[in-house]
């Protein structure tokens, strides 16, 4: 059993954790939920003794009657990996790219037992088998880049549990994965806790994830645990106001206009006919990433596009945006042919804009906001009153006109995504492609951005193509949903119908994999919330 008692951490003068008490019992799963910056990751790093260099911790972290906070580094090294294991959010970067997966798992055993390489590799083999990477298909000699995100997360789990630790800390372990993979990884973690009797501290900002798996839940806000209780009781009572706010945000669905449903009869805004796109694979051969896709989006319509990672969503999006050429078929926007490269007229490009997932990576850090937002004007020519238009766009997305002279680092993740929306809006496009545009945002910020998107669509009569692997968000903001699998559209229908009564097996498995809070636990008669697949909440 591991206890934190009165655990506080400060960085410089700033308190990041205040009096955190947690009790992590063998065979139990404790969910730690909260928004980014609430101190969830900092709690995990304090427990495993890997706080940033300038952080100072006080209080106690007790393991077998010993306080880890006062333990010398050499003894902590012996505890890390052996008594306490940890996995992180980003499976794509969590493994050493130059080492085989076998050696990476074996290294844990070699460090703690001085085992020779051969013995350690044979134990590593057993651990990899246990996490669902069985022998002939997944030899020890594979490198991380030869595995998918979910498979890499399994390797990370294998090395964290190689020594059968007393405690496994999982910091947003499924946030970067799609719903189906998320469900598999959560199953694996629950199975490990059951079979090996370890304690699991599961950090997430997705309430539905903890609802499905955790025995107890602690809610964190500004470095404090505001509420802690057995899962069902916490969900049913929601004693603390912050817990209630968090719940409300995660169940939020933007208000809808009555007559919003498809204006039939109008000519399509976007029309794809038998679109085909292929990639050459590194080992030879070709992958048909987009296979004979036909679809239409009518003016002002909001359409969702969902599917597992690798189903061809991104490839299709790039083709629609005129970034990659098609091998066959056609794409028309407003009756004009979309082609990749220079021969697509700027006037046509100006009719669609895109908002990407990463609010941190999609801006030049050296440009001021006005220049960033005015950038799409290179398609249409910059009007003389462009500064007024930038100010207007900023106000439309709920920011201040005076923000125009700031730089992007001065804004939070949610504000950056508003700026990205302002940049897309400035030339009044007919279609905005939202590529996982709210996935990186915290639940409360996400609720606000979804409301904003719904309002803007109403006031500007734009169409949305909303790409996401989060079905609950798609359901909230779109009228029609397209489900993609292996490069094909396998289901196309009204959002409610596709999600509540999926017909295709692929849609059914996506819906089944959605983590959900049991309806009986929530007071309000709201639809089940989906997973919040996000990259936020990473470190405080």
């Amino acid at each position, binding site marked *: 059993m591991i206890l934190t008692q009165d655990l506080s951490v400060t960085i410089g003068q700033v308190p990041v954790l205040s009096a955190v008490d947690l009790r992590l019992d063998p065979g139990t799963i404790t969910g730690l939920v909260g928004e980014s910056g609430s101190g969830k990751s900092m709690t995990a790093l304090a427990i*495993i003794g*890997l706080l940033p260099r300038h952080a100072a911790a006080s209080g106690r972290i007790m393991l077998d009657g010993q306080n880890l906070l006062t333990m010398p*580094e*050499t003894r902590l*090294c*012996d*505890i*890390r*990996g*052996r008594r306490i*294991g*940890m996995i*992180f959010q*980003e499976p794509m*970067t*969590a*493994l*050493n*790219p*130059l*080492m085989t997966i076998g050696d990476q798992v074996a*290294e*844990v055993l070699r*460090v*703690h037992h001085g085992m020779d390489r051969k013995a350690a590799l044979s134990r590593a083999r057993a651990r990899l088998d246990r996490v669902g990477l069985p022998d002939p298909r997944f030899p020890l000699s594979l*490198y991380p*880049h030869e595995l998918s995100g979910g498979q890499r997360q399994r390797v*990370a789990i294998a*090395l*964290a549990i190689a020594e059968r630790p007393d405690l496994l800390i999982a910091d947003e372990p499924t946030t970067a994965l799609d719903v189906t993979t998320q469900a598999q990884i959560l199953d694996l973690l629950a199975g490990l806790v059951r079979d090996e009797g370890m304690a699991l501290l599961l950090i997430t900002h997705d309430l539905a994830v903890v609802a499905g798996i955790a025995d107890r839940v602690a809610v964190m806000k500004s470095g404090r645990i505001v509420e802690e209780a057995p899962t069902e009781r916490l969900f049913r009572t929601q004693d603390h106001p912050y817990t209630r706010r968090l719940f409300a945000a995660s169940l939020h669905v933007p208000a809808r206009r009555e007559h919003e449903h498809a204006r039939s009869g109008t000519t399509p805004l976007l029309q794809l006919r038998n679109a085909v796109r292929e990639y050459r694979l*590194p*080992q030879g051969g070709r992958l048909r990433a987009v296979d004979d896709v036909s679809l239409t989006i009518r003016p002002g319509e909001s359409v969702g596009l969902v599917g597992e990672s690798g189903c061809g969503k991104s490839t299709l999006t790039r083709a629609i945006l005129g970034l990659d050429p098609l091998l066959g078929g056609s794409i028309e926007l407003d009756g004009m042919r979309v082609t990749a490269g220079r021969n697509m007229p700027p006037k046509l490009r100006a009719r669609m804009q895109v908002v990407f997932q990463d609010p941190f990576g999609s801006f030049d850090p050296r440009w001021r906001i006005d220049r960033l937002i005015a950038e799409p004007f290179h398609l249409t020519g910059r009007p003389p009153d462009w500064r007024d238009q930038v100010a207007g766009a900023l106000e439309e997305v709920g920011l201040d006109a005076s923000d125009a002279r700031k730089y992007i680092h001065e804004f939070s993740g949610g504000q950056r995504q508003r700026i990205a929306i302002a940049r897309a809006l400035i030339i009044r496009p007919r279609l905005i492609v939202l590529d996982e545009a709210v996935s990186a945002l915290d639940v409360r910020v996400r609720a606000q951005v979804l409301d904003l998107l719904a309002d803007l669509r109403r006031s500007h009569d734009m169409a949305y193509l909303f790409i996401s692997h989060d079905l609950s968000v798609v359901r909230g903001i779109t009228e029609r949903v397209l489900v993609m699998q292996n490069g094909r559209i396998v289901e196309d229908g009204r959002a409610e119908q596709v999600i509540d009564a999926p017909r295709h097996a692929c849609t059914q498995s996506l819906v089944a994999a959605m983590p959900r809070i049991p309806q009986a636990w929530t007071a309000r008669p709201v639809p089940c919330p989906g997973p919040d697949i996000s990259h936020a909440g990473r470190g405080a």
Partner: protein
Amino acid sequence: MLRYVFRRTISLGLSLLVASAVVFAVVELVPGDPASFMLGTGAQPETVAALREQLGLDQTLPVRYAAWAAALLQGDFGQSFTYKTPIAGMILDRMQVSLPLAMMALLLAASIAFPVGIYAAARRGRIGDAAVMGGTQLGIALPNFWFAMLLVLLFAITLRWLPAGGFPGWGQPGPAIKALILPAVALALPQAAILARVLRSALIDTQGQDYIRTARAKGLTAGQTLLRHALRNALIPVLTIMGMQFSFLLAGAIIIENVFYLPGLGRLIFQAISQRDLIVVQSAVLVLVAAVIAVNFLVDLAYAAIDPRLRRR
């Protein structure tokens, strides 16, 4: 991996071909006719014409390139205009000094830079790191000829451990090596300073990576993490710099060669340029270009040996 090596080899061959054509063309474009230069200003036009014919200068450019390249492949670089001796022999003699000198200097630079760079990265932001950063700044700023003179004063004149200059030839291996030690040290120090800085910053970048955190969570100490996980990942930029340094050391040692009276390649090229011995310049430049291309080829192979992701390309 085999495919990668094969493709690199093809690219090596193509680079050599293009480089030889460019070197040939550039020397052709330089004004001045070697024949009239060799015969002096008072020579009869008929004599010049005869020499031109003898040298093959009267033929068309492609024909002369083909003949030149074919001869090159058989190790025939032609004859020096000034010394009337085969150029291949001259370059080979000079290479016997320049190649070991460059190798010694690079080896020395690496053996200083690796411990220093690793130490600085491990002590990042502390006093040891600051000392290394200051010291390497000085090492880059100080001109190596000045440093060479200090070395001569101390080790050759005061202590009399090593010769002050000259090269006895490889007939006497002991003295030959001794003659190269001081020049190698003088060449190595600035390179070591650059390399140590590159390694330090590459290591610091790598240490911010997620897999370093994973390694720490496994129970590795900070030192083990640095050596087992960070170092290999940081090697790519370091190797790139080392490849460039080797090429530079091969021909760029001219000042040091002069300080130590070494018959190296740099001095040969310098003399040939001042005497307008264009065919020697051409040959020496080509040898250097070939050396650079060959070193880059080896660096590419080393990349692939380090990084499994590159092997598939």
